């Protein structure tokens, strides 16, 4: 499991302090709701938090989502900065859990233990998580954006139903990625299409950057229902 570095701790602490000040400014009226909304969304308010939290700040229960996040629906606005500080103490945050951002990266639930996988997808998921977190270019995409990685041929991570799906593959003896784009569920379900049969490991992040940049530039922003990558 990834442990926060000093840089991560300092970044999160600064970010939480900024959000605490933003909440205070919303409550005292110096920020309007329109100004505050993008700030609260990028900090995950629509919070997806930690197991002991509901007893202290919610009503004793949470809601597990399909993506196995947990959401708390009842926290009071004033309590949220304390909740984010408590999360940071256990190396967690709620950044990019909502808003039109690159969301947390998912993998196969048998990752690391599956007999049919070429490689463990979790380090790749963590790499992409680090690349995408607070990526300055991708904070206001046309719509939310999801990436999944599998290490196996059997698609247990449902990579074909993500904006970008990555399948770890081998070409000769080199390990790389099959890149699938444009999948998704929801209102307009669509199976992703293969963009590249093989991308080398060193080309992975530039490839992702290129795909998301094109989407950021050309994706629709006038109609929420046609704004997805697949549309």
């Amino acid at each position, binding site marked *: 499991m990834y442990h926060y570095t000093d840089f991560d701790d300092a970044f999160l602490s600064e970010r939480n302090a900024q959000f605490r000040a933003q909440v205070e400014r*919303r*409550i*005292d*009226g110096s920020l*309007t*709701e329109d100004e505050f909304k993008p700030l609260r969304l990028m900090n995950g308010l629509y919070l997806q938090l930690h197991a002991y939290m509901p007893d202290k700040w919610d*009503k004793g*229960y949470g809601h597990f989502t399909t993506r196995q996040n947990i959401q708390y*629906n*009842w*926290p*009071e*606005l*004033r309590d949220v900065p304390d909740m984010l500080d408590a999360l940071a103490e256990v190396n967690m945050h709620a950044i990019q859990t909502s808003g039109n951002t690159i969301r947390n990266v998912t993998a196969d639930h048998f990752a690391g233990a599956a007999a049919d996988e070429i490689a463990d997808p979790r380090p790749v998921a963590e790499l992409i998580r680090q690349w995408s977190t607070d990526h300055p270019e991708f904070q206001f995409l046309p719509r939310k954006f999801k990436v999944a990685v599998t290490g196996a041929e059997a698609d247990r991570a449902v990579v074909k139903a993500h904006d970008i799906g990555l399948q770890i593959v081998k070409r000769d003896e080199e390990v790389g990625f099959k890149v699938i784009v444009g999948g998704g569920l929801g209102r307009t379900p669509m199976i992703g299409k293969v963009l590249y049969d093989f991308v080398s490991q060193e080309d992975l992040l530039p490839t992702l950057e290129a795909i998301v940049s094109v989407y950021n530039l050309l994706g629709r922003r006038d109609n929420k229902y046609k704004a997805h990558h697949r549309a």
Partner: protein
Amino acid sequence: MLRPFTPKVITANALLEGDVIYQTPFGWTRQMEEAEVLTDEAHADLRLIEAQAQSGQIVGAYLADVTLDGATPMPVHFREAFRAKGPSNYAHGKQEQF
């Protein structure tokens, strides 16, 4: 001929607690039955402007259609029925009372 005006209430969410709230002649309530019913379009628009000006207390005020059971407003759209009853979970929130 003028289209008849569907009666409305003004609803929003409380800024601090997030609860669903309804405007009354004197402030805000968490019970839809106690909401002020607006039957005149111009008056409804005016009351909405007044509500939206209270951004230090509320978020996202809008007019919601209602039908009347006697004098009591009842939701028309299922979204408003959900909002009036709280989450679809009998053990918590407003539904504990049902």
